[in-house]
Protein backbone atom coordinates (compact mmCIF):
# COMPACT_ATOMS: atom_id res chain seq x y z
CA UNK A 1 0.00 0.00 0.00
CA UNK A 2 1.20 3.49 -0.81
CA UNK A 3 -0.03 6.56 1.01
CA UNK A 4 0.09 10.16 -0.16
CA UNK A 5 -1.88 13.36 0.38
CA UNK A 6 -4.02 15.33 -2.01
CA UNK A 7 -4.11 19.11 -2.14
CA UNK A 8 -7.10 19.28 0.23
CA UNK A 9 -5.42 17.30 2.99
CA UNK A 10 -7.21 14.06 2.15
CA UNK A 11 -5.28 10.85 2.46
CA UNK A 12 -4.86 8.81 -0.70
CA UNK A 13 -4.31 5.10 -0.27
CA UNK A 14 -3.42 2.73 -3.04
CA UNK A 15 -5.26 -0.44 -2.04
CA UNK A 16 -5.24 -2.34 -5.29
CA UNK A 17 -2.23 -4.64 -4.74
CA UNK A 18 -3.54 -7.65 -2.83
CA UNK A 19 -7.00 -6.17 -2.22
CA UNK A 20 -9.01 -9.02 -3.70
CA UNK A 21 -6.89 -11.68 -2.04
CA UNK A 22 -7.53 -10.06 1.33
CA UNK A 23 -11.30 -9.82 0.80
CA UNK A 24 -11.52 -13.43 -0.32
CA UNK A 25 -9.44 -14.59 2.61
CA UNK A 26 -11.67 -12.80 5.12
CA UNK A 27 -14.97 -13.61 3.40
CA UNK A 28 -14.40 -16.92 1.59
CA UNK A 29 -16.62 -17.37 -1.45
CA UNK A 30 -18.39 -14.05 -1.03
CA UNK A 31 -16.49 -12.09 -3.65
CA UNK A 32 -15.60 -12.42 -7.28
CA UNK A 33 -11.92 -13.24 -7.54
CA UNK A 34 -10.07 -10.69 -9.62
CA UNK A 35 -6.52 -11.44 -10.51
CA UNK A 36 -6.47 -9.06 -13.45
CA UNK A 37 -5.63 -5.40 -13.07
CA UNK A 38 -8.35 -2.97 -14.09
CA UNK A 39 -6.70 -0.12 -15.99
CA UNK A 40 -7.51 3.47 -15.14
CA UNK A 41 -10.17 5.02 -17.38
CA UNK A 42 -9.31 8.68 -17.58
CA UNK A 43 -11.97 11.36 -18.05
CA UNK A 44 -12.00 12.30 -21.72
CA UNK A 45 -13.82 15.66 -21.43
CA UNK A 46 -13.61 18.54 -18.95
CA UNK A 47 -15.72 17.93 -15.85
CA UNK A 48 -18.02 20.84 -16.66
CA UNK A 49 -18.87 19.17 -19.96
CA UNK A 50 -19.12 15.63 -18.63
CA UNK A 51 -22.31 13.59 -18.75
CA UNK A 52 -22.57 11.90 -15.36
CA UNK A 53 -24.46 8.84 -14.19
CA UNK A 54 -24.93 7.30 -10.76
CA UNK A 55 -25.08 3.59 -9.88
CA UNK A 56 -26.03 2.50 -6.38
CA UNK A 57 -26.61 -0.69 -4.38
CA UNK A 58 -29.04 1.18 -2.13
CA UNK A 59 -32.18 -0.48 -3.49
CA UNK A 60 -33.73 2.80 -4.61
CA UNK A 61 -36.65 2.58 -7.02
CA UNK A 62 -39.52 4.66 -8.36
CA UNK A 63 -42.72 4.22 -6.38
CA UNK A 64 -45.00 1.73 -8.06
CA UNK A 65 -42.27 -0.37 -9.68
CA UNK A 66 -41.71 -4.02 -8.76
CA UNK A 67 -40.05 -4.06 -5.33
CA UNK A 68 -36.67 -5.71 -5.03
CA UNK A 69 -36.93 -9.18 -3.49
CA UNK A 70 -35.19 -8.42 -0.23
CA UNK A 71 -35.89 -11.81 1.38
CA UNK A 72 -34.82 -14.20 -1.37
CA UNK A 73 -32.12 -16.48 0.07
CA UNK A 74 -29.66 -15.87 -2.78
CA UNK A 75 -30.62 -12.30 -3.58
CA UNK A 76 -32.22 -10.29 -6.38
CA UNK A 77 -30.23 -9.98 -9.63
CA UNK A 78 -32.36 -7.29 -11.23
CA UNK A 79 -31.86 -3.54 -11.32
CA UNK A 80 -34.12 -0.51 -11.56
CA UNK A 81 -33.80 2.62 -13.64
CA UNK A 82 -34.27 5.74 -11.56
CA UNK A 83 -34.99 8.86 -13.64
CA UNK A 84 -32.42 11.48 -12.72
CA UNK A 85 -35.24 14.03 -12.72
CA UNK A 86 -37.03 12.21 -9.87
CA UNK A 87 -38.01 14.00 -6.70
CA UNK A 88 -37.06 12.10 -3.53
CA UNK A 89 -40.77 11.72 -2.78
CA UNK A 90 -41.11 9.83 -6.09
CA UNK A 91 -38.71 7.17 -4.84
CA UNK A 92 -38.66 4.48 -2.19
CA UNK A 93 -36.13 2.13 -0.67
CA UNK A 94 -36.40 -1.66 -0.80
CA UNK A 95 -33.33 -2.96 0.94
CA UNK A 96 -32.89 -4.48 4.40
CA UNK A 97 -29.13 -4.78 4.65
CA UNK A 98 -28.13 -1.28 5.68
CA UNK A 99 -29.51 1.29 8.12
CA UNK A 100 -31.96 3.53 6.28
CA UNK A 101 -32.93 5.87 9.13
CA UNK A 102 -30.96 8.72 7.54
CA UNK A 103 -32.10 8.02 3.98
CA UNK A 104 -35.73 7.87 5.07
CA UNK A 105 -35.38 11.49 6.22
CA UNK A 106 -33.15 12.71 3.39
CA UNK A 107 -32.50 10.35 0.48
CA UNK A 108 -29.44 12.36 -0.51
CA UNK A 109 -27.35 10.72 2.22
CA UNK A 110 -27.23 7.55 0.12
CA UNK A 111 -28.62 8.59 -3.28
CA UNK A 112 -27.63 12.26 -3.77
CA UNK A 113 -29.95 12.96 -6.67
CA UNK A 114 -30.71 16.55 -5.64
CA UNK A 115 -27.06 17.42 -5.03
CA UNK A 116 -26.10 16.10 -8.48
CA UNK A 117 -28.83 18.15 -10.15
CA UNK A 118 -27.57 21.23 -8.30
CA UNK A 119 -24.07 20.61 -9.65
CA UNK A 120 -25.50 20.57 -13.18
CA UNK A 121 -27.34 23.84 -12.51
CA UNK A 122 -24.08 25.37 -11.29
CA UNK A 123 -22.26 24.03 -14.38
CA UNK A 124 -19.82 22.08 -12.23
CA UNK A 125 -20.75 19.02 -14.30
CA UNK A 126 -22.21 19.05 -17.78
CA UNK A 127 -25.37 16.99 -17.51
CA UNK A 128 -26.89 13.85 -16.03
CA UNK A 129 -27.91 10.73 -17.92
CA UNK A 130 -31.72 10.42 -18.18
CA UNK A 131 -31.60 7.49 -15.75
CA UNK A 132 -29.59 6.52 -12.72
CA UNK A 133 -29.37 2.84 -11.74
CA UNK A 134 -29.96 0.93 -8.52
CA UNK A 135 -29.93 -2.65 -7.29
CA UNK A 136 -29.55 -4.40 -3.95
CA UNK A 137 -26.21 -5.51 -2.67
CA UNK A 138 -27.42 -8.75 -1.14
CA UNK A 139 -26.47 -11.24 -3.87
CA UNK A 140 -24.90 -14.45 -2.64
CA UNK A 141 -23.82 -15.92 -5.99
CA UNK A 142 -20.92 -13.77 -7.19
CA UNK A 143 -20.53 -15.70 -10.45
CA UNK A 144 -24.19 -15.11 -11.32
CA UNK A 145 -23.89 -11.49 -10.22
CA UNK A 146 -21.01 -10.91 -12.62
CA UNK A 147 -22.60 -12.86 -15.48
CA UNK A 148 -26.07 -11.28 -15.26
CA UNK A 149 -26.64 -8.17 -13.15
CA UNK A 150 -23.23 -6.60 -13.68
CA UNK A 151 -23.44 -7.14 -17.44
CA UNK A 152 -27.04 -5.90 -17.60
CA UNK A 153 -26.25 -2.70 -15.72
CA UNK A 154 -23.09 -2.10 -17.73
CA UNK A 155 -25.11 -2.38 -20.96
CA UNK A 156 -27.84 -0.07 -19.67
CA UNK A 157 -25.32 2.51 -18.46
CA UNK A 158 -23.36 2.47 -21.72
CA UNK A 159 -26.57 3.02 -23.71
CA UNK A 160 -26.88 6.41 -22.00
CA UNK A 161 -23.32 7.37 -22.98
CA UNK A 162 -21.97 8.81 -19.73
CA UNK A 163 -18.47 10.23 -19.60
CA UNK A 164 -18.28 9.48 -15.92
CA UNK A 165 -20.05 7.04 -13.58
CA UNK A 166 -20.21 7.45 -9.83
CA UNK A 167 -20.66 4.05 -8.17
CA UNK A 168 -21.78 3.91 -4.57
CA UNK A 169 -22.34 0.99 -2.20
CA UNK A 170 -24.89 1.32 0.57
Amino acid at each position, binding site marked *: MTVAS*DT*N*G*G*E*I*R*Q*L*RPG*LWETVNERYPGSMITKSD*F*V*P*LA*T*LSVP*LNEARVTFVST*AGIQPRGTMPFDTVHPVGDYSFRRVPSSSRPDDLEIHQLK*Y*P*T*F*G*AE*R*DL*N*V*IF*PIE*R*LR*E*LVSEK*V*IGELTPDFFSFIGYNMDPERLERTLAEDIADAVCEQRPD*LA*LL*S*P*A
Partner: protein
Amino acid sequence: MMGHHFGVPFHRELQRRIILEALSFISSATESGAVLKIPITWAQARNQAKALGLTEEQNR
Protein backbone atom coordinates in the same frame (compact mmCIF):
# COMPACT_ATOMS: atom_id res chain seq x y z
CA MET B 1 -21.25 5.30 8.20
CA MET B 2 -23.08 2.48 6.48
CA GLY B 3 -26.16 3.82 4.70
CA HIS B 4 -24.89 7.40 4.95
CA HIS B 5 -22.05 7.58 2.44
CA PHE B 6 -22.85 11.17 1.50
CA GLY B 7 -23.11 12.44 5.06
CA VAL B 8 -25.96 13.25 7.39
CA PRO B 9 -29.55 14.27 6.58
CA PHE B 10 -30.03 17.83 5.35
CA HIS B 11 -26.31 18.71 5.55
CA ARG B 12 -26.21 19.92 1.96
CA GLU B 13 -22.71 21.34 2.14
CA LEU B 14 -21.25 18.07 3.39
CA GLN B 15 -23.17 16.01 0.83
CA ARG B 16 -21.93 18.36 -1.87
CA ARG B 17 -18.36 18.27 -0.59
CA ILE B 18 -18.23 14.48 -0.68
CA ILE B 19 -19.41 14.43 -4.31
CA LEU B 20 -16.97 17.19 -5.27
CA GLU B 21 -14.08 15.38 -3.59
CA ALA B 22 -14.92 12.28 -5.65
CA LEU B 23 -15.27 14.24 -8.89
CA SER B 24 -12.02 16.06 -8.28
CA PHE B 25 -10.24 12.82 -7.50
CA ILE B 26 -11.59 11.18 -10.65
CA SER B 27 -10.47 14.15 -12.72
CA SER B 28 -6.93 14.01 -11.41
CA ALA B 29 -6.53 10.24 -10.95
CA THR B 30 -3.28 8.77 -12.19
CA GLU B 31 -3.56 5.24 -10.86
CA SER B 32 -6.32 2.60 -10.90
CA GLY B 33 -7.63 1.45 -7.54
CA ALA B 34 -6.53 4.45 -5.49
CA VAL B 35 -8.75 5.44 -2.56
CA LEU B 36 -9.07 8.95 -1.12
CA LYS B 37 -9.95 9.09 2.56
CA ILE B 38 -11.67 12.39 3.37
CA PRO B 39 -10.57 13.73 6.76
CA ILE B 40 -13.99 13.89 8.43
CA THR B 41 -15.51 11.41 10.87
CA TRP B 42 -19.12 10.35 11.32
CA ALA B 43 -19.11 11.92 14.80
CA GLN B 44 -17.88 15.23 13.38
CA ALA B 45 -20.55 15.15 10.67
CA ARG B 46 -23.32 14.49 13.20
CA ASN B 47 -22.05 17.22 15.50
CA GLN B 48 -21.92 19.67 12.60
CA ALA B 49 -25.51 18.84 11.70
CA LYS B 50 -26.62 19.35 15.31
CA ALA B 51 -24.75 22.65 15.57
CA LEU B 52 -26.35 23.86 12.35
CA GLY B 53 -29.76 22.79 13.61
CA LEU B 54 -30.51 20.90 10.42
CA THR B 55 -34.06 19.54 10.37
CA GLU B 56 -36.71 18.47 7.91
CA GLU B 57 -38.70 21.64 8.47
CA GLN B 58 -35.87 23.91 7.35
CA ASN B 59 -35.45 22.01 4.13
CA ARG B 60 -39.03 21.95 2.95
